[in-house]
């Protein structure tokens, strides 16, 4: 849809806010040829944009890097708001293990800074190699390390946001324990920008582990791998993460152990005793490249779905999914989710997905499409906005974005 901004919006913002570019895949996903991007340089400018949009009846699609695109596009006029200019570290107190940074700061840059103090933010969701802090929080994804560190939402201590109608709010704080009022911050984590634009975030950091050991088990029999993985997930020790990747030809189980050398060694022994298998040990940098490869393996895949079920049902779901020809799977065995990277040469994507959905639901799981080729219009499977799921979510949407200006993508 066509929006001519140059006129009214350019008068409200400095020049620096214009002329920025975003990945071209975003435009494809959003089905538009009018590439309107605005990059505010402050929370006040974000508010200006949102107030303007409310008045003009224009939708705003907030993005971080814009790399991860949920295929749901607005049919009304819209602009893209990138946080790329909001990228500084506002406050870092290593002794408190807390950091406040602007939403557009890249996790990679922040991590470099944290590492100089022996600290890190242990969340590494797959597919997008360099998320922004705001993007990470907006998607709410923790990645497989949540097995050992808990979910991202529990480590976001505070944020500043601008609601759909331009109201700026300061949520939470800088301290780990805080129950002063209703926890609105929690709904912002994972809200995909549907309620507000996140402008800065305070996160709790962790000390880098002394030893980061990767245990590897490869096998052609995926079922066998799954049962080992489940045994690891129910062992008396808690690994940092358990990732299982598989294709129809076989798979690989990666178990990460964090801690002091002696305890990591003891944990490995106890896991091997518990599962009855012996793992190969990979050390950095080999381990690192393996993990990077694992995380990024599906980045270019155009058809991605995520399946959720009780963790104990993961094996059954993998058995089903691995039958899809050419599929590549990545499972969080502890949490109960699988990302399936599907080949686009599927003869009929729509009916294949419909079949898959039916089978998965019969097994007690749910399926959600994360990415789909632009030419497919399979809206029934993936066009569900977050906030239509029940009155409560819709009520919150109305409370924070009363004019329905914001259009969240994943």
């Amino acid at each position, binding site marked *: 849809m066509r929006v001519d901004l140059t006129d009214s919006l350019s008068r409200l913002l400095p020049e620096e806010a214009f002329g920025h570019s975003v990945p071209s895949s975003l435009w494809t996903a959003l089905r538009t040829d009018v590439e309107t991007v605005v990059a505010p340089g402050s929370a006040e400018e974000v508010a200006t944009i949102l107030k303007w949009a409310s008045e003009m009846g224009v939708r705003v699609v907030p993005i971080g890097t814009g790399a991860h695109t949920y295929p749901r596009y607005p049919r009304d006029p819209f602009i893209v708001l990138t946080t790329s200019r909001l990228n500084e570290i506002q406050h870092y107190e290593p*002794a408190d293990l807390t950091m406040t940074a602007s939403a557009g700061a890249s996790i990679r840059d922040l991590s470099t800074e944290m590492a100089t103090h022996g600290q890190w933010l242990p969340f590494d969701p797959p597919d997008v190699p360099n998320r922004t802090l705001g993007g990470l929080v907006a998607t709410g994804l923790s990645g497989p390390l949540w097995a050992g560190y808990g979910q991202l939402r529990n480590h976001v201590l505070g944020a500043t946001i601008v609601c759909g109608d331009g109201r700026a709010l300061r949520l939470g704080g800088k301290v780990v324990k805080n129950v002063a009022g209703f926890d609105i911050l929690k709904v912002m984590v994972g809200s995909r920008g549907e309620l507000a634009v996140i402008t800065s975030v305070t996160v709790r950091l962790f000390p880098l582990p002394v030893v980061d050991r990767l245990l590897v088990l490869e096998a052609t029999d995926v079922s066998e791998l799954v049962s080992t993985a489940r045994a690891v997930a129910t062992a008396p020790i808690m690994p940092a993460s358990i990732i299982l990747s598989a294709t129809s030809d076989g798979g690989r189980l990666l178990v990460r152990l964090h801690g002091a050398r002696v305890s990591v060694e003891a944990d490995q022994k106890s896991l091997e005793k518990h599962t009855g298998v012996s793992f190969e040990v990979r050390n950095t940098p080999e381990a690192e490249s393996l993990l990077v490869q694992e995380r990024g393996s599906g980045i270019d895949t155009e058809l991605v779905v995520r399946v959720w079920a009780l963790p104990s049902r993961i094996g059954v779901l993998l058995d089903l999914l691995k039958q899809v020809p050419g599929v590549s799977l990545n499972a969080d065995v502890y949490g109960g989710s699988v990302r399936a990277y599907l080949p686009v040469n599927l003869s009929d994507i729509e009916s294949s997905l419909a079949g898959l959905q039916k089978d998965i639901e019969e097994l007690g799981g749910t399926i959600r499409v994360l990415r789909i080729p632009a030419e497919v219009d399979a809206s029934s499977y993936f066009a569900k906005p977050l906030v239509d799921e029940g009155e409560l979510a819709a009520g919150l949407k109305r409370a924070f974005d009363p004019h329905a200006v914001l259009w969240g993508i994943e």
Partner: protein
Amino acid sequence: MYRLLEKTDEEPVASLLTGKVSSGMTRPLPSTVVSDLAKIVGHEHVITDPDRLLVYESDGLTAYRRPPRAVVLPSSTEEISAVVGLLHSNGIEVIPRGAGTGLSGGALTTPEGVIVGTARMNRILKIDVENRIAIAQPGVINARLTEATNPYGLYYAPDPSSQSTCTLGGNVAENSGGPHCLKYGVTARYITGLTVVLAGGQIVEIGGVGRDPYATLDLVGLFVGSEGCFGIATEIELRLLPITEGVRTLLGIFESVESAGRAVTKIIACGLMPAAVEIVDGPTIKAVEASVFAAGYPLEAGAALVIEFDGTEAGLDLDADRAEQCCLEEGAIEVQRATDPEHRVKLWRARKKAFGAMGRIAPDLLVQDATVPRTKLPEVLAGIDDIGNRYGLKIANVFHAGDGNLHPNILFDRQNQNELELVERASKEIMQLCVDAGGTITGEHGVGVDKRKYMTLVHGPAELEAMAAAKRVFDPASLFNPGKVLPEVEVKGATDTAKILATGE
């Protein structure tokens, strides 16, 4: 437009602190409502006798007293739904109550309110060992869940000091913490799904392991910590953890609380991840040692630091050695280490018994709760000390040092009217001090009725309005626990709140 904070035209809450006691008769419920309630839960579970209602006039914060119009004790989700539906259709406010152990007056009724208690909803409905979750009714006592799951090698991590008596429903409402949440996190981290009764009696299920958490907003996260203002959780799905293999407990004795505080910073900064780090200050040590709970701490000590590590047995001694080194470097007089359960209990004794011991040495005790960034502990403690000296009040500190969660306890005598005034003023100064240091007004006890007056120290009108809007989504008519959390509009007198209201218009 700032319109959220509906004025309740009530008299000021009667207070033990001010020596006033609520004497006015509570308006009885219409007899038809009573008989309809009795039809739902059975007449023996509807309490309307004003004499009996006296025991429900306070929770763990006895400074506020007001008896409810009735107490209803349902036993199932369906009963709660029917009770809430009935009360709300009669425009009657619902005050949820668990074990009544809260320290912020969260279960104090409004003048028109009916308490809905969860005492009879005390069954653990499911323990799913394979998926490490349990489903419990809200009246289940926190520690009972751990007892019930221990045989499977699992436990429930959040351990508020009142865990032997507080209920999981109350923990959900307050987002409770505890000593070990330094490593393991607070209640919100462990609540995976809820069945909730909303205004009008509507039953909704939110969250749940096995359901795509990214398919909608994190309603569970928002509900946890909503202090009974959004609805009543009637079934709670919780994440369990495997029991850790080993534990090491250290007790460091320091000359001053500042040096103990510096040791804490050092321990965390060197990359250690203790399960708990607690400080007991000098005045508290003296109180404990003078009481029946004497733990054998040296009386001249300025502070005692309890540090606990848990996890894989093999790494624990190494962690303990490093922590001990940190303590000694910061001038610890001595460091003891426990490996067996009995010795561990002994090292923890002064920490665990501190409140009871203080209850024995002073007629009255105000337990405060605030959080500051850990690095600010030494300066904030010095500031609290200074406030105590200026007001001539004895303040003893017992707190979760690892996450900067302070509990300054103000000792006083309620018979002394002048002292009451001072306690009130000192409390406010302490809150301001903590907020100025980058902290907040409550870390784990909640806002309830007691801390509403401090909410404006940390939140502006826009934030408060946003919170009120969130409440309206769940409870449009404001019939769930009204008058809690959000500050009240003050009509009379130019208070801080009124000023903020003016700017919020």
